[in-house]
């Protein structure tokens, strides 16, 4: 097994490059549906951060995503693939509800703490079942957590329809006691930004400290990288698996409890709404790094909030799904990004790569200009109906070359930046 000799900051390069490339590709699609990508992205940005209510909305959407991202990311670091964040989130919210509706007489600070702790414990317990099964019998956690997801889903929908049901319409539980509601940091119109974001960020920082500074983190990562060497190094794999799953589940459970106490104030059957599964993509984009996950979750949260605004402007919000999909694809297949990056660490390499880059850019520009001309409406009208398609073909060629040109330029710039960074860090090392 060879480990890439590239520097550590590489971990951040791949997601950033992926986002840039995804935005470029999506912009071509926006052009193809006859809109301006610049306008679309401006609206997207404005929709996500343009006003205080937009920011509040983005942060509310980001909060649970940070936690489920952390849940899955921590699992990855420990070598377990926790697909069950969804179910753990549901169980966390459900158990927290059962407690929270009965905590009316307890002072808020204690009531909130108890509610959140119960949510975490429920998530941890739910996940630990899968961890225990893996440690004892070798049952793969992907299978067991998916099964546990279904159990959690049906259990929760039974709970809101029978024992906890109130009112009519959407099945829901009674509202939780006021003392258990998370305090609001900001209220803009109908949007309450709750203190959950602080809890999530603290969780991310704590997780970072655990992973990077403690013996436990050392052991968890060791088991994730190489279980054989971990066992050799005195790390009990079965203990480690169960514990990692429990921590992962606790984070997902916390996400559920925060959604309950900060947003919905009552348990709804659809409370998690796929946020547990989003955790997988967020962990991937954030490269399983707790701090990276905060940003990845913010990206997803912002895309979602902004997409609604885009929809109003007549640009389908599914563009956002395309962007998301491409980012995840590129991050997961990071070899594509890695191999398209060129390290220009020597003078000859710089000259060689620059020459190649200029050549490609010129060729692509010529193709774009020519096809732009050839795709002009009416140019092929002497061919009748067939001419229309010929024009369209050139139009597609034009767009594809435009896209390629943008990618070529972006990759060249990014490569140059990375190379500079590498040369610089190497020099620094030599000095020290």
């Amino acid at each position, binding site marked *: *097994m*060879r*480990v890439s*000799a590239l520097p550590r900051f590489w971990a951040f390069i791949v997601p950033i490059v992926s986002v840039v490339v995804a935005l470029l590709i999506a912009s071509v699609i926006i052009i193809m549906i006859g809109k301006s990508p610049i306008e679309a992205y401006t609206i997207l940005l404005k929709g996500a951060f343009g006003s205080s209510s937009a920011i509040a909305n983005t942060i509310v959407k980001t909060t649970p995503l940070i936690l489920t991202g952390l849940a899955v990311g921590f699992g990855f670091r420990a070598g377990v693939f926790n697909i069950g964040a969804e179910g753990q989130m549901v169980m966390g919210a459900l158990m927290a509800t059962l407690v929270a509706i009965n905590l009316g007489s307890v002072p808020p600070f204690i009531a909130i703490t108890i509610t959140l702790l119960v949510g975490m414990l429920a998530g941890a317990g739910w996940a630990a079942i899968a961890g225990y099964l893996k440690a004892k019998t070798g049952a793969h956690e992907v299978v067991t957590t998916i099964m546990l997801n279904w159990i959690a889903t049906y259990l929760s929908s039974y709970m809101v329809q029978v024992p906890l049901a109130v009112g009519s319409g959407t099945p829901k539980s009674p509202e939780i006691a006021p003392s258990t509601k998370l305090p609001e940091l900001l209220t803009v119109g109908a949007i309450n930004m709750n203190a959950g974001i602080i809890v999530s960020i603290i969780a991310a920082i704590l997780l970072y400290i655990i992973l990077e*500074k*403690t*013996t*436990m*983190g*050392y*052991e968890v*990562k*060791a088991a994730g*990288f*190489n279980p*054989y*060497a*971990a*066992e*050799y*190094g*005195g*790390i*009990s794999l079965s203990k480690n698996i169960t514990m990692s799953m429990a921590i992962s589940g606790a984070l997902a459970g916390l996400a559920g409890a925060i959604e309950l106490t900060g947003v919905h104030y009552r348990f709804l059957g659809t409370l998690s709404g796929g946020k547990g599964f989003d955790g997988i993509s967020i962990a991937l984009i954030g490269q399983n790094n707790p701090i990276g996950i905060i940003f990845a979750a913010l990206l997803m949260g912002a895309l979602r909030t902004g997409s609604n605004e885009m929809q109003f402007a007549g640009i389908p919000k599914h563009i956002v799904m395309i962007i998301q999909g491409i980012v995840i694809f590129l991050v997961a297949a990071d070899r594509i990004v890695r191999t398209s990056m060129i390290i220009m660490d020597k003078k000859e390499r710089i000259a060689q790569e620059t020459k190649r880059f200029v050549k490609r850019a010129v060729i692509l520009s010529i193709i774009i200009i020519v096809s732009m001309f050839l795709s002009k409406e009416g140019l092929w009208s002497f061919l009748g109906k067939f001419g229309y398609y010929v024009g369209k073909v050139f139009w597609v060629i034009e767009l594809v070359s435009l896209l390629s040109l943008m990618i070529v330029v972006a990759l060249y710039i990014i490569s140059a930046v990375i190379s500079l960074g590498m040369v610089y860090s190497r020099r620094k090392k030599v000095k020290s």
Partner: protein
Amino acid sequence: MSYEDYAVVMKGIVKRFPSVLANDHVDLFVKKGEIHAIVGENGAGKSTLMNQLYGLLKPDEGEIYIFGKKVDLKGPKDAIANGIGMVHQHFMLVDNLTVAENVVLGSETTKSGFLFDLNEARKKVKELSEKYGLLVDVDAKIEDIPVGMQQRVEILKTLYRGAEILIFDEPTAVLTPQETEELFDVMRRLKEAGKTMIFISHKLNEVMEISDNITVMRLGKVTANLKTSETNEVEIARAMVGREVVLRIEKPPHKPKEVVFETEDLWVKDNRGLDAVKGVSLKVRAGEIVGIAGVAGNGQTELVEAITGLRKIEKGKITLLGQDATGYDPRRLRDMGVAHIPEDRLKHGLIVQYPAYYNMILGQQWWYPYSNRGFLNHQVIYETTKKLFEEYDVRPRDINMFGGNFSGGNQQKLVVAREINAKPKFMVVAQPTRGLDVGAIEFIHKTLLKMREQDVAILLISMELEEIFSLSDRILVMYEGEIMGEVRPEETTVEEVGLMMAGKKLEEVRS
């Protein structure tokens, strides 16, 4: 210039990898019909050179001539078409197919166009094996035949594809002394039949025995072209490492003290659930090296894993420092003073994704001062690593480098440094010098002898008889999970131990 007389000529071969120059203007001349040895330290570029000859890698510069004709090898297919065959170190055989099926696999003869003709295949393989005296049972399944015969199947495979030039990549690494002799007989017969052979090896005595000419490589360059009949092991070793090396290490007399480690009637199962260790009893005293000799796969791995807490003990007892330690987990054993240099450093010994400083505390990470109230003390870890890097000459001296980016020899030094730094009372040392070059082997042997003088009890498991002989105070020979006998190195011979490795009990050998 014409290369008509040469089977292989590689001229000015340059192969660059991102961080190293693996071959630096290498010239290799192999005469028709000779056995040509290539020797060199690990990372000297031998395998890179051979991979280019076999078409697996493309040279950055340089030319290759086969039988005087310039060739451009795009892949192994081209190499095979040019009459080159490779006998890999790790056999490329399908375990549950028969010998004949394996030999013809990939170029099967067919009946009426598409039906596999087994009889034709059996006939051809039989003819071939008789022609070159390669004794095989054409109908036996690969999984049922011994390693030596599997290797002959590999050779047959190359011959079946019309190889005139055979590359042997460290072929003796997996063989008993007897099997090695048989292989050499086969090689001599192939030479009589006019085949050309390239023989890659670490083992200088074998090179001296079998080869006609020797090319020595060091750091990607050819440092010597020698005629075997006009050279000796010392000269080769000097060309390999660039300095004189003591091949036989001096072992000062040392009196062992109390028994530190003992097993009684130990039974262990392998991964398939079959008995791998069958009632092994042994004792190791403080200040004593006990060597376990044997061909790979005779239960040594399972024995080591059971002793170090990595594998379940089915039956029997382990006593450590006078205390019953049966079934203890690795953590507890390490706390009691057990260290372990594992046979597979990439699987067990290192976490390749961890930087060197984290690898330097693996198995000790919960010990003070590395860990203080649950937090890692990075400053102490860095300093310890730096100190050990100096002491054990781990190169490069970059403690931030990932474990996987060190060369094999330096990875091993890292593991050895770590395990000795744990100040063990009992040390299990499995294959400590596998794949290492002469310089590193010497260093590790000296280190182990120093541990012995400091009254550490050492259990040494090795497939290298020379290592066992030069280090051990007592030798136990293991065969199919049982101990065939115990001998003292000064009272026995390589032949005697070799016979025990092949399954004869000491009494049978001596009677």
